[in-house]
């Protein structure tokens, strides 16, 4: 029963939601919207469990002075401050100028932006590694990348300013070729992958609905 009940629920809900996708009637929409609401409710309870797991993990780290336990104090302090400032004034806490929003705007957003901006450096280092023309494939990749990069920025004006002879060629030919690389060979490969993904997703969903794939229940197959 421990396994049969979740499998039955999964099958019934899977079939219902598949059928729902094809029915635009308001009863069908009502069902869909209610399912989403239930998902939010379940998520909220799961979030509490998640936060408890996080608190437990870091408290133990501090308690037993495990390696890097000082970082755990920072994590717990951040969590505590967010909770206190968030609950302090109820729904008003998310108004501008409130402590919670000040923390969000001046601490969290800049930290997130900092992490995101790291991407620029990582793209440079990844590009350096990838574009070394060691093999034929890598060389083709390098050429395609250079063409696309140059074609998508307004380099022609710079060439013109420098009175270089090939500025007209760069201006007229390169952007078009870059677009062609993106729209045809690149798009063809992308669509090929996407067709595979679509079929794989249908197959995985089918295996779960039919109860063939059961590892999500725990305990392997």
């Amino acid at each position, binding site marked *: 029963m421990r396994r049969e009940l979740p499998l039955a629920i999964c099958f019934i809900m899977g079939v219902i939601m*598949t059928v729902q*996708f*094809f*029915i*635009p*009637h*308001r*009863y069908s*929409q009502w069902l869909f919207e209610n399912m989403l609401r239930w*998902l939010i409710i*379940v*998520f909220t309870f*799961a*979030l509490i*469990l*998640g*936060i408890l*797991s*996080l608190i*437990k993990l870091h408290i*133990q780290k501090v308690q037993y002075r495990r*390696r*890097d336990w000082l*970082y755990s104090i920072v994590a717990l302090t951040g969590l505590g401050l967010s909770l206190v400032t968030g609950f302090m004034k109820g729904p008003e806490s998310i108004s501008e100028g409130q402590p919670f929003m000040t923390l969000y705007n001046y601490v969290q957003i800049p*930290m*997130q932006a900092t*992490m*995101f901006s*790291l*991407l620029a450096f*990582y*793209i440079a*280092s*990844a*590009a350096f*590694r*990838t574009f070394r023309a060691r093999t034929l494939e890598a060389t083709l990749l390098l050429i395609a990348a250079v063409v696309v990069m140059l074609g998508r920025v307004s380099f022609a004006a710079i060439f013109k300013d420098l009175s270089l002879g090939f500025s007209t060629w760069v201006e007229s030919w390169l952007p078009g070729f870059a677009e062609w690389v993106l729209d045809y060979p690149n798009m063809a490969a*992308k669509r090929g*992958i*996407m*067709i*595979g*993904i679509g*079929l*794989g*997703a*249908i*197959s*995985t969903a*089918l*295996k779960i609905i*039919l109860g*063939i*794939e059961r*590892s*999500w229940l*725990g*305990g*392997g*197959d």
Partner: protein
Amino acid sequence: MKNLTRAFTVFLFYFAATALTAAEEAEPPVTARDVPNDAGGAVDITWLASPLEKEEGFQGYDVQRRAPGKEAFETIAEITPGEAVYQDKEAEDGVPYEYRVRALPAEGPPVVLGVSGAAASGQWFNTRRTNVLVGVIFVTTVIVFFIYRAKGGAELFVRKIAGLEAVDEAIGRATEMGKPILYVTGLGDASEISTIAAMTILAKVATKTAEYETPLIVPCYDPIVMMVEKEMVREAYAEVGKPDAFDEDSVFYVTTSQFGYVAAVDGIMVRERPATNFYMGAFYAESLILAETGAATGAIQIAGTDRVTQLPFFITACDYTLMGEELYAATAYLSRDPLFLGSLKGQDWSKAVIITAMVIGTALLIVSVHLGTGFAKLFETGAG
């Protein structure tokens, strides 16, 4: 050749006749009709532009509605000049309303363009999704057929997938080095197929780590995913007879903030120095930040995602990458269960049919462009 000419003549006559019939049917000045493929409660009203539009100071149109049994029309919308369509979203299902459109000249009384009646209703089937339904039924049938064929004991060949072949090697490396394995299931929630696929691979990896008693670290972005993964890892340890070796804190929630999560996982990589990193599931802008940090720590990295835009980043920074469908094929590949292999075969055959349809479709489309026939309409997709 004679037959071809005859067929072409028939085509010409057919389209000429269709065009003439269409021309003979004069379009009414105002048309109200139920919005097709909707939840109900809406009526589309269209009208022919009034000749008054050309006059200076023309104010536009007003759309009026009259419920059955009511004397007067009430104005429900005022439309600017140049527009000739309005959707009444306040209609009650099943009530046969009358709609009247009036042109509003610069001076003088409004000019009635026409009256048309319609009742709103919700549909029980979205005809714009017929092609999706046909596709789903076809693919499902093929997959189920191959699953049952595999159940019957048929031999099924699966090509070698380097990323999955390397799983054992990667786990073995971590075990030899006495370092942990980091398993990241991305930013997807539990309802995403790629996250579910990632979780099934985690179950297999956890079985191995339990066998070798290699530490496993699973930081989670979504609390529901965390709960499911915790259960899966716990069961994997129990399955190999080592329930006590399972560390409750090995699967833990981090945050639902994208870059907060990245910061935490990067921190784990730098501090714990895992020998092997798995990135499976749905990833966004964080993919390269994670993979590059992992590469910098010297870990062997295996990634798998169905996000096409993130694949190049993983291919660049990881040792092995499962591209798209390979992520979904992982369970079948790792378990070699005939049922799973059958579903894989079904996918392959569906793909073959889709490729054939694409080739035929492309040919018909080219014919359509050159001959002006209506083949292209067969391949129109209905969004929504």
